[in-house]
């Protein structure tokens, strides 16, 4: 596992970085290898990189993923590292896409999600959060509720009359909507347990709240004008 910090963008063709220049760092070395298109470049992790990776796994990843999940992630990265570039761009990127629905179905999904989160948020407001796991749970439900509200009342407000609606331009909306749907049964289950699963909740909190930055998506706690999007 080579930890690198790259600002990826996302569009309908997949993820990309226009300013990615690979150079050797303290954490990895660049090596060249002969390829059909000329000289290929690869990365070799060095000792300092291994130490950083170990530290990240023990201090950060372990807070959001269980050991089995970390192992599965490592296996997936290893499998992907064995694929050719065209296999990655053609096949793997397709897996990232969420089905693009017709408008009626999309509106119906947004409404259903919003109502589910409205119910969950009402329940959360009745409870006192006294542990870190409780606070994470409450914060996650609150964030998801306002995100679903943002979808319904702002982002997709005029979807029915918007003319040629650019579905492809809203990939993050689809990701978030899809994952909001996925998380609802998990949160409902957590609502009823005394001792909440902190690692599980941290993972979803990290995904919804921390994974996105202002320059990529407006509904972000890094956006100075977020309060204008709270409806």
């Amino acid at each position, binding site marked *: 596992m080579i930890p690198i910090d790259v600002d990826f963008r996302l569009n309908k063709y997949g993820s990309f970085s226009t300013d990615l220049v690979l150079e050797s760092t303290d954490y990895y070395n660049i090596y060249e290898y002969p390829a059909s298109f000329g000289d290929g470049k690869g990365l070799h992790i060095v000792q300092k990189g291994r130490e950083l990776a170990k530290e990240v796994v023990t*201090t950060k990843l372990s807070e959001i993923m269980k050991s089995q999940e970390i192992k599965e992630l490592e296996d997936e990265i290893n499998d992907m590292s064995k694929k050719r570039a065209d296999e990655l761009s053609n096949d793997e990127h397709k897996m990232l896409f969420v089905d693009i629905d017709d408008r009626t179905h999309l509106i119906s999904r947004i409404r259903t999600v919003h109502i589910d989160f409205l119910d969950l948020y009402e329940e*959360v407001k009745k409870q006192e*959060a*006294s*542990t*870190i796991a409780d*606070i*994470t749970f*409450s*914060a996650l*439900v*609150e*964030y998801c509720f*306002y995100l679903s509200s943002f979808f319904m009342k702002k982002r997709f407000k005029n979807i029915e009359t918007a003319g040629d609606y650019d579905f492809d331009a809203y990939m993050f909306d689809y990701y978030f909507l899809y994952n909001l749907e996925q998380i609802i049964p998990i949160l409902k289950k957590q609502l009823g347990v005394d001792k909440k699963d902190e690692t599980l909740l941290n993972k979803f*909190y990290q995904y919804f*709240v921390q994974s996105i930055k*202002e320059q990529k998506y407006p509904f*972000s*706690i*890094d*956006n*100075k*004008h*977020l*309060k204008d999007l*709270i409806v």
Partner: protein
Amino acid sequence: MTLYDNNTYSFDDCSIFNLCEINIPNSWSEMFGTNRLRSYNYGKLVRLMASLNQQNIIPYRFIPESEKFNSNLIKHANQLLIKTKINPAFMDLVFKKEVIESLKFSFKGVLKVFNTIQKNDNFQNIKQFFEQNCQVPTNVPNNDDCKIIGGLNSFNCLGNKFFISADNHFRNNCDLIKQEWNITIVPEHECHLLC
């Protein structure tokens, strides 16, 4: 006062919390007029830490962490927020979570400059001493406080031992602690007087 490298300067976890800076995310920073939250004694604690660092004196903290670490974390985050007298106005649960996460992250960073002293689990005689000598029963330190005193008492040191804390259990018993174990309790708000 002057700092000496043969003295031991140790800190209560609560004072280490007070050494932490909390980042306020952009969406709330305008409301708070800043993107940083700091405790009231932050400046004094930083001054002491800078002086210790300047003289290559490594400060100490106590391990293992209290079982109440998470509740102390929440308590400190709440106290910092209450002192601002500002209501986050929107998504207050998310804001609280962010403050706690930021405090936890900062705390872990601050810990890197500290060496550690093991708390002493054989604290019964210390507890008993306080129970017999404290005139006000509520002044009797809790078990974890007694483990800290036991740990610092057994710690080898050529000079004097100082313990910086904002906890009233220590401050109210500073004379007893000095007399019995020769440990100087330094109230957090006076810690800058050490340098």
